[in-house]
């Protein structure tokens, strides 16, 4: 195995119109690699771990960029950079949860070019998979991360099925919490998918992280005004405080009536192959106030159903602790 780090020959397209991009995506299908900022692209290609025929660079398509107000909330173009999101006044006012999450992504330089669409559709960080091994996720017939001696501290405690990789995206948790809709276009039309269904697990799609099929392009994300200006909580626990992926993260949106929780969405990152909704926490939280007492009462529900691997049972108490912190006044 050679260690590569130079981009191999690969065709590049830089369309400036979405329809051009869509026809290219359709034409190349599996062989086409759609990219925005490219920050989760070049490593794969340099390693020659993935070998698409062509890169379809969306960053030149103006219609995919920018934050627009819709009749029900906002629409964020897929190639809007994280930098733009972090600095957007409206998002900071109404959906600070997203701004916070985006602010914890990777490093400043990566946020400067990394796009929302890219961050949402990025591939898992399982180090075995990233090494280019032909595991289930890479179309193989085994999982290296789930052996009796596998080093899987960062891997899944929930929703694993053969593959035990986790979703690395910080903004994905926020999107699920905010009940965002993903707008997906293809040559044959446009469909929109609830964020919760956009992220898919190995039980159904072992080689994909999202519901995007070859030929499809995520064009925008719509965030309904439902949660605008509500109470949010975001926290990401990682080894390093910048430039790292979550061991466990949590994104919470709550609507309070008086001082009791009328409705809430608790979503954990880094624990499953998709952003993981803590539905039992949500239902238990309903009617509770934010207090030490309710925090202690509800936190233990967070890790229900979790099945730890060799090195990651710490994620259970960590999930509970993050819920506890979100439930505090």
């Amino acid at each position: 195995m050679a260690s590569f780090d130079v981009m191999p020959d690969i065709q590049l397209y830089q369309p400036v119109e979405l329809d051009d991009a869509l026809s290219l995506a359709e034409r190349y299908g599996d062989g086409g690699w759609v990219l925005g900022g490219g920050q989760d692209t070049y490593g794969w290609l340099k390693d020659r771990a993935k070998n698409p025929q062509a890169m379809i660079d969306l960053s030149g398509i103006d219609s995919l960029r920018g934050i627009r107000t819709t009749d029900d909330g906002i629409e964020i173009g897929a190639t809007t950079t994280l930098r733009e999101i972090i600095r957007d006044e409206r998002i900071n006012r109404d959906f600070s949860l997203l701004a916070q999450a985006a602010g914890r992504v990777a490093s400043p330089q990566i946020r400067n070019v990394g796009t929302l669409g890219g961050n949402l559709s990025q591939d898992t960080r399982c180090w075995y998979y990233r090494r280019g091994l032909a595991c289930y996720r890479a179309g193989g017939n085994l999982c290296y991360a789930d052996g009796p001696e596998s080093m899987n501290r960062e891997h899944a405690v929930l929703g694993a099925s053969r593959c035990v990789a986790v979703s690395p995206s910080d903004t994905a948790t926020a999107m699920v919490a905010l009940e965002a809709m993903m707008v997906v276009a293809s040559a044959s039309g446009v469909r929109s998918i609830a964020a919760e269904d956009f992220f898919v697990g190995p039980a159904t799609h072992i080689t994909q992280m999202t519901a995007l099929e070859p030929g499809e392009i995520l064009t925008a994300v719509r965030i309904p005004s439902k949660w605008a200006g509500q109470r949010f909580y975001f926290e990401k626990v990682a080894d390093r405080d910048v430039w790292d992926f979550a061991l466990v993260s949590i994104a919470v949106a709550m609507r309070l009536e008086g001082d009791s929780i009328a409705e809430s969405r608790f979503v954990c990152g880094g624990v499953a192959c998709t952003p993981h909704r803590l539905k039992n926490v949500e239902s238990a939280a309903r009617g509770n106030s934010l207090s030490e007492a309710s925090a202690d009462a509800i936190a233990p529900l967070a890790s229900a159903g979790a099945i730890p691997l060799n090195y990651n049972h710490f994620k259970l108490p960590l999930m509970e602790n993050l819920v506890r912190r979100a439930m505090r006044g």
Partner: protein
Amino acid sequence: MNDYKLVGKDFTPPDVMGKVTGKAKYAEDFRVDGMVFARMYTSPMAHGKVTHIDASAAEAMDGVIGILTADDVPAVEAPNGAILTNSPAFIGDPILAVAAVDEKTAEDALAAIKITIEPLPFVTDPLDSLIAGGPDAREEGNVYARSREGSGFRTVKWTKEQIDDFRAGKEPTGEFAAEWKYGDLDKGFADAKVIIEENFVTTGYAHMSMEPRTAMAYWQNGTCYVHGSAQSHTFWMPGLARLLGIETKDLVLISENTGGGFGSKIGAYPIAALPGYFSKKIGRPVQLRVTGEQEYYMGSARVGFQGWIRMGFAENGKATATDVFIIEDIGANATGGDASSAGGAISLVYDPDAMRFRGLPVLTNTTPRGAQRGPGQNQIAAVMAPIMDKAARELGLDPLAVRKINAANNATTVYEEQRGVTSAYLEEALTMGAEMFDWENRRQQPKKNGSKVRGLGIGQGYHSAGATGFDGLIRITPDGKLHIHTGVGNLGTYSFASTSRAAAEVLKCDWENCEIHNGHSEKNLPWNSYQAGSVSTFAHTRTNYVAAMDALRKMKLIAADTMGGEPDDYDIDGQRVFLTENAAQGMSYGAIAARAIQLGGEYSGQTYPDDINEITQRSVQNLAGSGLVGVAKDNLPQEGTIPGLACAFVEIELDLETGKYEILDYVGIAECGTVLFPAGLAQQMKGGAVWGMGMAALERHVYDPQYGLPANVGYHQCGIPTYLDVPSVTRTGAVDIADPQNPFGARGIGEPAMGCSVAALTSAISDALDGHIFGRTPVSPDMIVNHVTGRDQSFLPLQTNNF
């Protein structure tokens, strides 16, 4: 205080300008006509034998110039690392290289090469190899002991019971390879009021210098020109020449700047010779840019420890006895030797009345190990700090008091031989640090605040910090300029410049009037020490001192010869030599230099002392007749260990719910004799602090034991500390008491600067967790969360190279 003009004063080293403008050239910034680019194929297998290489497809490609295999380079005897090998012993062991017109073509060629490797048993954790029936990392054995008496392979196995007892914290009873002791151990423990017994792990981790070990080479009428990434300069020459199979006179090494070394580039490493062989084979200049991943593989790593220690303390906290047993993970190339150094560090820093060290170096199929900033001393510093705290707690003493009563001082004796030290003032350092840190007051502050708890820690670091016997070479030219030739490498400590100022100090030269020649063998450099082991400051203030004294002697002789009187009637200042009684009567340095050229002989380097190294001799020969030459070998008296010492005080705020902690304050105090270059010292103390923070919290090897795969081959996975993982401000100070055995009283500091930091942090973490001792570095958030919530850790006791 001294009245030096340059020593102890800040200045702008000549290479800083190039660094901030991007003009500073590192190995891979050089381009020469006809240069081609090489890429390496490294072993995908932790241990195996290459049985077949099919490079036909690659060779047929356009733009591919050539292929270099193990058959083209000298074979090396196991366990030593080879330039290229057919018997890879770790993932990433270089097997072949391809040269092409550009890097992409070279990689296309690599992708087309088919290599068949027959797998052999491998192991990634020393204890897995040590246990009966466990695999050996090498066919020759699983232990390789290096010693003066002779080095060799052995196969050492412990019974399962012995391994289990060791894991359980009991004294190891298995076979060991090295032992030394002093004093009466039994009496020592008998005298002890409390005895602390702990086992410990310090996981090895990669150096990951910012500049991968790129090298470029070409041949010109028999001389090999190598642009390398060298931590030391002239010290590299003999090793690199040996690797290339040539004499040092036929080697030109260019290494003006080096993007970090930290011990991984001390001497010439095998891969630095690859372009030389490749260039010879294909007749074109070859540049090998090592990828980041390959830098992880062959950039070497810190030796890991799995050990056990028993330590006795008297009622007043004095260490009465220490018994330590260390298994060291020496990787596949049997490099390291950290364990005995760790024992030596204990004997110096805590100076127990009696001590025994036992060690066993075990081979694993992991990346080659090498000296890494405080090799041995810093691992044990991390282990010792919480033990000192525990002793203090059990004796009801202030942890600071326990450290002070054991602190190294001028009476301290070291190692088996119990030799003395040149000087040591660790207690003064502790006092100074405690004041700056406001230790007393901070201890009174409340500890807990919600889920957050504060922890205070004290750490001590040590490394022997000096070497002797190297050469100094300076020159004064008729234009009156002082030329200081130095073979000190430039790895970013600025020691090549700060030690050069010693010569200017002796000759009372304005710094503006001095020129440093370094980084290129054709600049006629003297034989100098390695830039490691914190030795440069001590060693090269001495070499430049003796060279300057030689020049001074010659100048006075010339003055007396020209102006009459005795040499001793003359004095110097303002770059003039003049009569002490009548300053008006004298000669400028320029005039003296011109005269020296006329006189010839030793004055201008036609003759020179015969005890200087051949490299220095050649340089003097080249310089002969160009001015007044001062050249000498450092034969100044030196006895005893030369300690570089440091201590650190840290306050952390640890969040019990996330396992993360923030470093609220850090104070590091250097005890390195006279401060030579204050800004440079601050840099070393702060950089060392960051390294300690990385070792304490983040950095470790992770290997999948089933497949032998490394998990962390990049900066992100290696957990290199970032701006946000270390405090925004780190405070430093220095004791600044002159050492009697250096003409300027200076000693080195680079390594202790890190040891005190990692120790202070393990101490602070233990303090925050009510004295819990993890006995392991790094301590990661998952470990803390598991401990706080009363869960088992995921790893076996003493397991290493794991998360």
